Every structure is written in C-alpha cells, then in structure tokens.
C-alpha cells in the first residue's frame, strides 16, 4: 500500500516537471517567432498604426507602399546584385581554398605535417589587428576593389580543420592504397575520388561561408568607399542604423508622407534582405548541424 502511494506521488512529480518543461519550451518558441512575425506584418501596415500600437497579430489594412518605394530604389538593386556576386564568387573561392588544404592536411603521410599544422593554427589565436591588416590590403592595391571581398580573408583555419576531420573519418585508407597501386596520383585521387565522396562537408562549408559573406559588412565598410561596390548590409546600415531616408529630404506636407514611407521601408528592407537566408534555412539547419558535430570532434 505504502509503496503504491509513493509510485503515484512520484509520477505526479514527474508530470509537473513535464508541464514546466513544455511551458518553457512554448514560451521560448513564442519569444522567437513573435518578433519575426511582427516585422513581417509591420512591413505591410501603416506606420501610424504600428507606432500607436494597433498592430499586434495582423495588419489593420494591407499596404504595399513600403515595398513599392523600396523596389524603386536603384541602390537596392545595385547592392543586392553586389551581395549576390560577393556571396557566390566568395563561396566558390573559399571552397576551393579550404577544401584543398583540408584534404592535404588529412593525409598522414605528408612530410612536415606537424609544422604545417602549427602554421595554420597560429592565426586563429594571434592576429595582426585592424591597422596592420589594413596597411597590407592597401599595399596589395585592394582598396575599392571587388576582390577584397573575395580573396584576402577566404582562408578559414576552422573550416580547414572541419574538412580535415571529415576526410580522415570518411575516406577509407584502403581506397587510397588501392588507387595508388593502380597508378593514380594524389591530385587525380583528390579530384575523382575524394571530392565526389565529400558532398556533405562541401555543403557544410559552402553554406557556412555563404551565410557569413551575405551577412558581413565590416570589411566592406573599411575597404570599399565606392558606393557602387557596397553590399546590401551597408545599405541596411544607412536605412536601419543611421536612420537615413533613401528618399531624400522634403519640407511641409511632403515631409510627413516621406517619413511614413521611410518607416515602412525599414521593415520592408529587413524582410527583403533576410528572405534568401530564410529560404535556405531548412538546408542550412540540417547541414549546419552536421558542421557543428564535425567541428566538435576535432580535438
């Protein structure tokens, strides 16, 4: 009898714990989804309604003015194009650089492997810092050049380690041995055996790099003064942070209308710039997860 009561009591305790856990989970989900949803509905609402707190779950009236005005801006299309170019070119280049290095580092028969390893690890902990790097980029004549967004900072020791770990644990040594017997050299083996077997790690590093470039802005800020070369994130900086209106200045009656449109463009620009990442998100989620796992077992 006593024993039975204890059992019931315990399961009650567990049940309370279960309720607490699920409530916290639901609160966390709402705390993340609501702000994002709010931005979307605010981009379709009249800013006056948003400012006075009349928009909570659904726009009072659907308006597309913010998007219309935003899409009229040549600077949006130009910077969007720049970002797409930097992302694609930068990702392809970084993949080439880091995957080749990762493969070489994965081979245990490379002479001097230990020292080469150190050479790649040191920059993870010691950096020349802002000014010395700036001076070098300047010496290479890369200021105001599109290549500064693609070439100089493409090496990632972290991604090289991820690739190395992947190659080591997924390419059986016997494959390389038998390829050697058949007279296959390292480079050919890398291209026709190692690469086709490594789509997962290529996807991980590629998506990782692409999101990084899409979201980056600081290098562009210091190295690209030419406005026609600037990426989307710097345009967002003008709209969201510096609070500049892309529509210019006006006085009197026009000023109020202009402010209304500028406010709507703020929300619209957030949606427009984040949509590509959100569309990729299901893939990102899956592969990034794997990337974190591969990275985690590196030590």
């Amino acid at each position, binding site marked *: 009898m006593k024993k039975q009561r204890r059992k019931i009591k*315990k399961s009650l*305790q*567990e049940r309370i*714990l279960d309720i607490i*856990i699920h409530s*916290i*989970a639901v609160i*966390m*989900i709402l*705390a*993340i989804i609501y*702000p*994002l949803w*709010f*931005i979307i509905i605010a981009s379709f609402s009249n*800013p006056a309604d948003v*400012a*006075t*707190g009349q928009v909570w779950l659904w726009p009072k009236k659907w308006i597309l003015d913010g998007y219309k005005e935003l899409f009229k801006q040549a600077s949006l299309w130009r910077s969007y194009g720049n970002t797409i170019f930097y992302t694609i070119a930068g990702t392809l280049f970084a993949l*080439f*650089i880091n995957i080749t*290095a990762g493969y*070489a580092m994965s081979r245990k*028969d*490379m002479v001097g492997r230990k020292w*080469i390893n150190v050479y790649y690890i040191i*920059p993870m*902990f*010691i*950096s*020349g*810092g*802002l*000014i*010395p*790097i700036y001076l*070098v980029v300047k010496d*290479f004549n890369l200021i105001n050049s599109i290549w500064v967004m693609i070439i*100089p900072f493409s090496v990632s020791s972290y991604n*090289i380690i991820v690739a190395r770990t992947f190659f080591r644990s997924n390419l059986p040594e016997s494959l390389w041995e038998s390829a050697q017997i058949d007279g296959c*050299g*390292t480079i050919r083996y890398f291209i026709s055996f190692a690469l086709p077997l490594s789509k997962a790690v290529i996807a991980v590093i590629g998506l990782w790099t692409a999101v990084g470039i899409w*979201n980056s*802005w*600081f290098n562009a800020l210091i190295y690209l003064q030419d406005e026609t070369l600037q990426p989307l*994130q710097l345009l*967002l*900086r003008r709209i*969201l*942070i510096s609070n500049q209106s892309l529509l210019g200045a006006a006085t009197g009656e026009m000023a109020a209308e202009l402010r209304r449109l500028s406010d709507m463009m*703020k*929300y619209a620009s*957030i949606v427009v710039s*984040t949509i590509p*990442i*959100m569309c990729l*998100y299901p893939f990102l*989620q899956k592969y*990034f997860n794997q990337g974190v796992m591969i990275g*985690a077992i590196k030590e």
Partner: protein
Amino acid sequence: MKKKSNIIKGLKKSIPLYILLLPSAVLLFCFAYIPMYGLIIAFKDYTPGLGIMGSPWVGFKHFIKFFNSYQFGLTIKNTLSISIYGILVGFPLPIAVAILCNQIRNKKFKKFFQVTTYLPHFISTMVMCGLILIFLSPSSGIMANFCKIFGLQIPNFMASSTAFKHVYVWSDIWQHLGWDSIIYLAAISAIDPTYYEAATIDGASTLQKIRYIDLPLILPTAMILLILRAGGILSVGFEKVLLLQNTQNAMGSEIISTYVYKVGLQSFQYSLSTAIGLFNTLVNLLVLLVVNWFSKKTTDTSLI
C-alpha cells in the same frame, strides 16, 4: 643512408599535397603573417611616408600613452563587464536549454522547438541591431506599446549607458541561445542509454538523472567551450557594439575594439591603435592559457 633516402622519397610523394596547400598557405602568409610583422609599428611612430621599416622606434611610448589615458580604464571596464556578464548568462543557459530539449518526448514538437530556436542565429548583425532599435524605440517600439497597455512608460534604453550591457547580452541570448545548445545536445545524445536504464531501475527521478548523468557527462564539452570563450574575454562582438553605439550610451559601450577602430581609422593614429590592439590580443592569449591550465588541473580537460 637508408633513412635519408626514405625522407627524400616521402618528400617526393608529398609534393602534390604541398601543391594543394599552396593557395591557402600563400594567402595566410600575405594576410595573416605579414600583418603580424606589421605589429612592430606599435613600437614605432609610423607614418605612411616613411613606411614600416623607415619609421623611428619609440619603444613602449604608445602603450604608456594608452595606459595613462582616460579611455584605458573606461574601455577595460566596459569590455570586461559586457564580456563577463555575457559568459555568466550565456554559458549556463545553452546547457539548460539542451537538457530541456532532451526531455521533450514528442519527436515532432522537439524538432519544431529546435528549428525555431536555431532560426535567429542566421539573422545578420546589421538586421539584429535594426530590430533592437525598432523594438526598443521609446516612442513607437513594440516594447513601449506593450508597456503602455499597463500604463507603464519605458525609458530610452539605447540612450542609457547603464542599460547598454543588458541590451547587448540579452539580445545575444535571444539570437544565439538555441544555436549554442546544439553542441551540448550532441553531447547528451552520445550518452550510453544503459546509464538511464540502470538509473530507472534504481528508481531515479528525472531530476536525479539530469543531476547525476547528464551534467557530469557534458562537463568536458562545457569546459572546452568555456576555455574558448575565456580566450576571447577582451573580444566582445565588435560589430554589434559599433552598430548600437551612439553618443548618449558611449560611456557604457566604448570597448577596446571600438576604440581601436576609432583611433586607427577615424583619427588615423596608426601606431597607437596597433598598440592597443596588440595589448588586447596578448591579454586574450594569456587568459586562454591560464584558464586552460586551470581546467587541466581541475577537470583534466584542456585545449592544448
């Protein structure tokens, strides 16, 4: 003799591998190692006309100038308080979320929970700062409107130097909490299920299982991440601080890296800026080594 020919044979075989390494090694040399050489301008009075070699040596002048300046205390204080606050909140919470997520039995709900909590991680720093400014706006922001329902008025958080670190740290939590928990979730899922079975037979409650199985077994992972975070103690997310900074909150938001940026690229004191940056790097390295040593002593986990 035989050994020597072996090395030559090995070298010959390694040549294609060196070719594969070449592009990345050259880029690293140009854009990581040459700038390290450039660090010597911290000990010189650098002027672009004279170049790195030609500029005169001045020893520790710039370091002393920084240590004696008013900004030294301020930037160190702000950097440390934001950073330590960030670690105190941002280190335990992902562990808690991972344990919480692991307790969710319904597979679909668990998946949904993961997908949503990872989502904000992919928002760019720029958009994130835009969201912060929009939501916290004291006149029209959603926070203000929400508080208005209860007749409350919120202060202008972005104009307050004391509120800055809270805004910074908690917005970071919102953005990265779910993502940071992935690694712990992986550590938990790697735990041998027989441990739980044995515990259940012995009548352990869920809380006891968490306390005696989950926590001790994710400790090594946690220590490694803590060491890495400690190694960046003077490197607070520079981009976000720079974007959220304004003249009104500068007393609470001026950190070492934003100061390096201003001294270097806005007032063009190249040598002073480099000296401050070098100081920052060295402190980071030192803290990393100390924490690593401490962790090795106490929990037997270490990075190096």
